[in-house]
């Protein structure tokens, strides 16, 4: 290597180093620009950009959930509905095993028939006694023997009348027993208390159902129904925001997961009772320090894509701007 070549080695290395440094440094920082969300979370509508209260809630039937259990426990023999059926008031939904009640009804019916026959028999006897007495009276022979006979006949007639009354009372008792047995059969049937839609059927023929809540506190009603025309949403509002909500105004509601499909829901009512917020932590011993006001809104008839029990996000109009207005704002 010549002297000249050697002299330029270091400056050349320096040039290479400088170029590298510039190249690396100019590539610079990792990308830290703000990016757009691919799936948009719920966004307040343009009408509510200034004053609004946000809440989350659940879709429910207009009647709320009606959880039906039979009046008496027993084994299911027949389920007449499937989820999704529309039912009218009084329609039979499910029947329990009622053989014992039917047997009692049969007994009562037999007893009634027997009592009716007894009435007929007693009536025959009474009529016979009455005729004989009338015959004796017509003879009007004032002898001691005749008088004795007349008394006998009168007594016989009274006895026959008493037996008839007894037979009639028996019949009444049998009729009451029949009615009781039939009520017993009726109590083993579950009928719709109102018109609506069957939402859930939790029992099958052959299963034992209890009356009222199942033991252990787990509430599994046999059938859940509700009036689903229209659907309501129950929106939870943090208790600190209660004063800000403009009650009576329509809310903008979107189902969870499809935040862009917002619909306007009509105000129905406010629950007067502020309740503890349900936190879904799956913990047995939960303490609660958040309480919520529940507001009920009706979804429009043509709202699509709202399933009962689904979570929704809602924006409600507020009375005024969010407490203290931002500094520097006019």
């Amino acid at each position, binding site marked *: 290597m010549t002297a000249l070549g050697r002299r330029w080695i270091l400056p050349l290395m320096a040039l290479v*180093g400088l170029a590298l*440094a510039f190249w690396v440094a100019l590539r610079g920082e990792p990308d830290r620009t703000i*990016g757009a969300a691919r799936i*948009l*979370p719920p966004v307040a509508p343009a009408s509510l950009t200034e*004053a609004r209260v946000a809440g989350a809630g659940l879709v429910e039937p207009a009647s709320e959930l009606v959880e039906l259990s039979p009046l008496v426990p027993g084994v299911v023999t027949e389920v007449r509905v499937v989820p999704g059926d529309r039912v009218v008031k009084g329609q039979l939904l499910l029947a329990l095993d009622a053989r014992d009640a039917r047997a009692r009804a049969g007994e009562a019916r037999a007893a009634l028939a027997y009592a009716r026959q007894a009435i007929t028999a007693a009536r025959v006897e009474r009529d016979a006694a009455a005729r004989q007495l009338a015959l004796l009276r017509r003879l009007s022979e004032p002898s001691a023997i005749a008088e004795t006979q007349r008394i006998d006949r009168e007594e016989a007639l009274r006895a026959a009348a008493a037996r008839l009354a007894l037979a009639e009372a028996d019949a009444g008792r049998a009729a009451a027993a029949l009615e009781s047995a039939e009520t017993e059969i009726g109590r083993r049937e579950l009928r719709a208390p109102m018109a609506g839609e069957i939402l859930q059927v939790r029992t099958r023929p052959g299963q034992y159902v209890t009356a009222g809540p199942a033991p252990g506190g787990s509430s599994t009603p046999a059938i859940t129904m509700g009036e689903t025309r229209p659907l309501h949403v129950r929106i939870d509002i*943090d208790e600190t*925001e209660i004063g800000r909500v403009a009650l009576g105004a329509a809310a903008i509601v979107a189902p969870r997961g499809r935040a862009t499909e917002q619909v306007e829901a009509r105000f129905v009512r406010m629950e007067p009772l502020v309740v503890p917020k349900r936190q879904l*932590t799956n913990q047995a011993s939960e303490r609660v320090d958040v309480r919520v006001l529940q507001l009920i809104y009706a979804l429009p008839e043509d709202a699509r894509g709202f399933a009962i029990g689904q979570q929704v996000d809602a924006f409600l109009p507020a009375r005024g701007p969010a407490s*203290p207005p931002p500094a520097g704002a006019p």
Partner: protein
Amino acid sequence: MWWIALRMLTGDRVKYLGLLFGIGFSTLLIAQQATLFVNLVGRAGNAVWAVPEADIWVMDAKAVAVDGTLPLPDTDLARVRGVPGVLWAVPHLREGGSVRTPEGKLERVSVIGVDDASLIGVPARFLEGSREALRAPGAIVVDEIGFRRIFPGKGARLGRELELNDRRAVVAGIVDVDPTFTSGVLFYTRYAQALEFVPGTRNRMSFILARAAPGEDPREVARRIEAATGLKARERTDWVGDNIDYVIAFTGIPFNFGITVALGFVVGVAIVGLTFSLFIRDNLRQFGALKAIGVTNGQIRVMVLVQSAWIALIGIAIGTGLAVVFIESFNNTDQFKGFFQPWQILAGTALVVALMVVATGMLAIRGVLRLDPAEVFR
């Protein structure tokens, strides 16, 4: 005149190389240590940078860092959504947990629960699998480094299973994400799923991620959120700054690195100063001769300036070159993943080293300036 100065400089090869080595080495030391420091501490902000969609982080009023916060009740999400200027807000859960690896080791993991519907909070760069796969039951998305730590060895990576809080978790994706400061394994999963994966208390929501409406200043919106809800809301670059400050305040790292940077500086000054003043002292005769033939002190100053500029330029260039080669060759390893070279550090180092060289040159030359030309001929 300049040419003479440079020939004078390069004439003594050993001293010339010594000078360059000293400058190059202290440049390398300062630049490299400062870069490592900035990057390491900057990792405290990576959890925030990993969510490019959100420009506001809302948290408990007493929260200080991404890994140290008190969870909020669910209804606070609605309260933040109700603040004017907020475009959207989603829940974000960050909680630590432990997981037993298939090999039986214990690993610290951060379970990160992202909004179920929008999946905001999942990193953007997927190496395997997809964002949508998170919707499957039990699905988790793991960061690349963490995956290798938990499942060492080869084989198909998607579909591996492990147990988290007695629940089955299935790897549905692997993401490329820069490690956080604590560099635990990152498990991304849906919020509802995360609630099951991490045993916890009643309130679970660690953060609320929000976005300012278009045309709104995120800092202004953050102030509004604070005023309306009483929570703490930070614009994301401010929040990154808070996290970095937290790390600086509560770990010994900045102190240690500061010492190293200072040492690099001292070593540089010592080598350069000593060599340069020795070099000038050795060349006293030559400078004297120059003065004798009528070269002024000003011209001599210029000559030394040229000499210092030359060695500074070459030394700094080589030093920064080596520093970036170091960063480039190591930023794909797990320890240095995501490290980058801020140009500010290179510029600052170059400036400091250049000043140091010029200053020592000017100091060393004082003797020459006071020199009587006749001295050389005695």
